């Protein structure tokens, strides 16, 4: 079963890359942007067919390795 997770910087953590991307978008004429935050996306194929269990496994991975909880939040966005 495939599980997807998104890791994003917490709100109060400065995201300089997001800021630069925002500036670039502005420069290209996308003037309607309020803010850009950059994150990471993981697609993990787990040997587990129960969606609840698969989600739990990936949550555990997120808290132990994929995200650094001092600065990042994670969200499981999809299981299929």
């Amino acid at each position, binding site marked *: 079963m495939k599980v997807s997770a998104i890791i994003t910087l917490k709100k109060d*953590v*400065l995201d300089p*890359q997001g800021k630069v991307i925002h500036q670039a978008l502005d420069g290209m004429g996308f003037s309607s942007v309020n803010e850009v935050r950059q994150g990471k996306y993981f697609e993990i194929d787990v040997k587990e067919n129960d969606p609840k269990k698969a989600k739990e496994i990936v949550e555990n991975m997120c808290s132990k*390795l*994929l995200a*650094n909880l*001092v*600065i990042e939040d994670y969200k499981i966005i999809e299981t299929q």
Partner: protein
Amino acid sequence: MKSSVITFPGSNCDRDMDVALKKFGFKNNMVWHDDNELPKSDLVVLPGGFSYGDYLRCGSMASKSRIMQSVINFANSGGLVMGICNGFQILVETGLVPGVLLRNRYLEFICKNVFVKLHNKENIYFKHLDKDVLKFHIAHNEGNYFCTKDQLKEIEDNNQIAVYYCDDKGQIEDQFNPNGSIKNIAGIFNKKKNVLGMMPHPERMIDQSLSGEDGSLFFKNLINNIK
């Protein structure tokens, strides 16, 4: 005095550290990241470099490598562990020292000499050092020290700040902060002060003809303190 330098795939300051430790009297062992056991050591050093190609987050993969469980046990039993640059990034990923290292605030790799001010000398690393301001070298892309407000309060209450970025007179101001670190923090200790993580490289300042001697002062003092 025995020391161990851990080599991870992508470490590139491990041999510099080996040279520095031997120059000032340590019997140094190079230890491979995939080993299980740490040789008997008075000091363990996690060197600078780009362990595991900085995949995921700098230091994150190395912090899970096989030898690190022995290093963590060694640190938790009071052993001296020093992480320099990428070694500092590995230390924060293990949780041995609090906080994280973000990308430098202007998104550029910084390679230059800096001055650092010792916060206090009540620890085995800096005790008896004559100087308060040392000239070291930095070379990093992710050295922007960050921690939560609660962590910062705890770090300050426990006197865990090791060194600050400053000017040659020891003034700690934002204009002397190369990478955006909170409060100009360049290095911190764990609570017991047996674990030190810092971005600047003392091992690059051990020869007057190449760079400077402030690293020599640091290592000479360190081995005397450990004896």
